């Protein structure tokens, strides 16, 4: 498995993705969050069409209060992953609406630890 990891500060995420992303070449899988206590590690996963087990992962960390930049300007389908982050981690993702996965009455940000 080939995994190219690109670690960038939060403000550079969009620029880092823009540098390599081409929809004919790369398939966007999802963005994943892992709660690290007070902050969240975020990873944007991509795989290359036509190649075996070739991935590119853009990694950053964000505090609970940071505004997460949207990548929907580059990848329109990413909105659903971003809205999920907003719901399940309670993050402030640029342009994301809350309530796609959770009812207003249900516990908020369930994937935060502690």
């Amino acid at each position, binding site marked *: 498995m080939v995994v190219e990891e690109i670690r960038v500060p939060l403000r550079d995420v969009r620029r880092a993705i823009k540098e390599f992303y081409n*929809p*004919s070449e790369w*398939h*966007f*899988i*999802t963005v*994943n969050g*892992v*709660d690290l206590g007070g902050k969240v590690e975020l*990873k944007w*996963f991509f*795989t290359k*069409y*036509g*190649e*075996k*087990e070739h*991935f590119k992962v853009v990694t950053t960390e964000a505090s609970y209060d940071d505004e997460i930049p949207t990548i929907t300007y580059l*990848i*329109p*389908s990413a*909105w*659903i*992953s971003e809205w*999920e982050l907003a*719901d*399940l981690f309670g993050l402030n993702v640029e342009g994301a609406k809350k*309530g*796609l*996965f*959770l*009812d207003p009455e*249900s516990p908020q940000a*369930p*994937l935060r630890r502690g």
Partner: protein
Amino acid sequence: MGKRITVPFGSQHVALPEPVRFVFQTENEKIVDVEVDVGYVHRGIEKACATKFKYMQVGYVVARVCGLCSISHTLGYVTAVERLMGVEVPKRALYLRLLVSELDRIHSHLLAMGHTAEVAGYENLFMQTFRHRELVMEMLELLTGNRVQFDYACIGGVNRDLTSDVEKVLRGKLKVLEEKAQWLKDVYENDFSLNLRWKGIGAVTEEMAKEMNVVGPPARAVGLKTDVRAEFDYLPFKEVGYRMVVLKGGSIYERNLVRALEILNSIEMCWNILDGLPEGDIKVPVKGLPEGEMFVRIEAPRGELFYYIRGSKKLILDRVRIRVPTFANIPVMKELFIGMDYADVPATVISFDPCLSCTAR
């Protein structure tokens, strides 16, 4: 410009096997805007997997994400754990996993095709399709012990071996299924009414599929050569005659035809597995605790299924992430509706074979 009318579709609708809600804004029956809500069956499975269940139990929990593709969910999870922990799975177990995985694909595809026939008003074909799907359900029950929640794969192998008695019955049923699947493929491909109703309706373009990162049969129906079975080595597909099915057109008709052709290829693979099933163990013992992170891709019947796990040498994992194919295909569905006639919505939605139980988790 006509008067704008709001038309809700779901959360409960006769065409929907599961709850999803689209709210359409229409003008003269043409859709001009749409909102979507997918969260009616959120059960907090990812949260439960990282708080309540030990890592060796999680495979059985994720099997409950979805009734139809529970085999793929377990397979995704156990493959991620095995890769993280460096577990070498016996060849016989890999072949048995492949067998149930392809049977799962067949019955899921038949379900999708049947539902599409139903929303086209072709109830007889719906019933015929589901009747033949029952053969696969019986085969899966013989192999795994269950009709729905299979719990077949486990970390290190599979839970049940294939006996010679079961193999004999499977071969008999597979022969009948092959004949019926060929007939179904001919009907879905050549029926005059279905051609008229589906060809060119709900069509995704290749450019749109790439931009919206479409996965599974809807991607292959538009000419996008993507199938995780060819892109990720999780089972020995090449050894048993796997072929990628790719068509052009991208409409409801092609999506169903891709499924029909994949069923035939899956049946061929099942024959090859039964003919060439290696001897040996079906499971190896697994020791230790998962440490680090791993992610895998699996080709579930509806498309790419992604599993991410992270552990820190504890019995309970720090994170289990599941990205299901319907989750990936919701954005293109939303895009596709703009400009479409409202009357084409039910068939278009069903032709994507959406699974909301998976999407909401």
